[in-house]
């Protein structure tokens, strides 16, 4: 029976995480439009609802009701399933992420993590690496050259940056000695001073860059850069299938924000009087804001520059960082 209870609890948690992050993702689209507008001296969406808050509902209605166009020459099942994969991988990665400190409801302690596996970090990164299949399959099945180019770029980009993210996160793991995100969080429970960002600044920077990379956000949005390859892998998509890509992208953003917050910025440990949950929310919000901010501020990078930076700058730096950490630890 205990097993069943666990399963039921897990399912409930999963549903909550799914719905909340999906909602947050949708909300984030509104936030993005607003923030980008403000940064560009605009107002952003204003008409639907107060200050355009209901714009996301309107978008949702539009996406759901739009015709689901499937072009004639695409590989139908793959074409149809690719967005689902993109969204699914984004959400599945969240299974091992603790969002908040544990709390008690009706005498029942709830761990706000879907599944506490001890290889959580590896798991998250593995699933993130599977995330390449969304763009890849979409691009390959679309029978469109822009899509194919987008898929190729996606593969190259993801594969390259997995190396950087893995190597950069290696140093903190070496210091902590655990892959569990809860352990990582607990390691930094000693206030701001104990944040890993101070001990591993280089790893932090590299991981942040890799995070931008893995979410395909500007300035590394080579795989769907309009000026070069129309809309990349999503060129042929419309309606809710395109929307799923969108949701996946925002879910990824949230995942990366949470990850960076937990690994380098103290996680959900309370600061002063602020409870951990609020701290966590603030951090995640800051990170999502940073994603938007960077998009507003920085120019786009060419794919070859991207590869160059990845393999010839970031990866050596990551390796050196790991080496130095190892030497210091030993």
């Amino acid at each position, binding site marked *: 029976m205990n097993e069943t209870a666990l399963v039921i609890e897990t399912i409930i948690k999963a549903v909550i995480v799914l719905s909340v992050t999906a909602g947050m993702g949708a909300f984030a689209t509104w936030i993005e439009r607003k923030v980008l507008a403000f940064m560009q001296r605009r107002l952003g969406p204003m008409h639907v609802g107060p200050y355009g808050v209901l714009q996301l509902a309107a978008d949702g209605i539009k996406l759901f009701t739009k015709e689901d166009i499937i072009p004639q020459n695409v590989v139908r099942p793959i074409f149809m399933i690719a967005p689902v994969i993109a969204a699914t991988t984004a959400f599945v990665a969240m299974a091992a992420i603790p969002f908040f400190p544990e709390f008690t409801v009706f005498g029942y302690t709830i761990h706000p993590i879907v599944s506490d596996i*001890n290889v959580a970090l590896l*798991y998250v990164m*593995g699933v993130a690496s*599977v995330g390449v*299949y969304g763009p890849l*399959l979409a691009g390959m099945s679309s029978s469109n050259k822009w899509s*194919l180019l987008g898929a190729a770029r996606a*593969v190259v980009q993801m*594969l390259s940056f997995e190396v950087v993210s893995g190597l950069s996160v290696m140093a903190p793991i070496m210091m902590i000695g655990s*892959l569990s995100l809860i352990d990582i969080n607990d390691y930094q429970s000693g206030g701001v001073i104990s944040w890993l960002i101070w001990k591993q600044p280089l790893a932090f920077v590299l991981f942040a860059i890799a995070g931008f990379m893995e979410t395909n956000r500007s300035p590394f949005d080579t795989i769907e850069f309009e000026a070069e390859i129309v809309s990349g892998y999503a060129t042929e998509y419309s309606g809710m299938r395109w929307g799923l890509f969108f949701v996946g992208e925002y879910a990824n953003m949230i995942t990366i924000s949470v990850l960076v917050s937990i690994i380098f910025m103290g996680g959900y440990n309370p600061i002063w009087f602020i409870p951990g949950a609020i701290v966590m929310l603030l951090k995640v919000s800051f990170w999502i804001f940073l994603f938007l901010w960077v998009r507003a501020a920085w120019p786009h990078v060419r794919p070859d520059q991207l590869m160059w930076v990845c393999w010839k700058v970031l990866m050596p730096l990551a390796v050196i960082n790991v080496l130095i950490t190892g030497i210091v630890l030993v």
Partner: protein
Amino acid sequence: MYEVIAFYIFSALTIGLFTVVVMSKNALYAMSALAGGMIFISGFFFILGAEFLGVVQITVYSGAIMALYAFGMMFFDTTRDVKENIRCKKIAYTLSILSSILLIVILCAPLFSQNIEALYPSIQNAGNIQMIGLVLFTKYLVPFELAAIMLLAAMIAGIVLASKKMEMNLEIDEEFEEAKDVK
């Protein structure tokens, strides 16, 4: 119970997906089915308590190897139907079915005696990763290093092979080919 359910679901899925890999004429189907199958295989690893291996399976197989193959498919222009003139399918199927029957007979036979002892027994109160780490860096250190060197060599080989004269078309001269044929 859930283990049983998971096992059977995963089994059905892996077998189905791998069958698609083998049978499908469409390379894209094959590729995606294989990637999916890999992920479900990692599911088996999770069930079996080998979390580390499961994650490695996902990361390396699905994340890296299959992506490489996808790249290859793009390069070889086989994102669509594979043109194959498959001969004597029956022989292939007969042989594989025969071998599977034989394998199953062997595996189901009570060959596994009880006196097998673990060389490296699992350590109590230690996670899968810790155990793997302990074993990997003591007993299997040399193979581990060798594997690292092998991977490095393979990487260099792959880069060299694939990037050599990337801008050139290596197709052999027609005349040369004809001369060879005459010979």
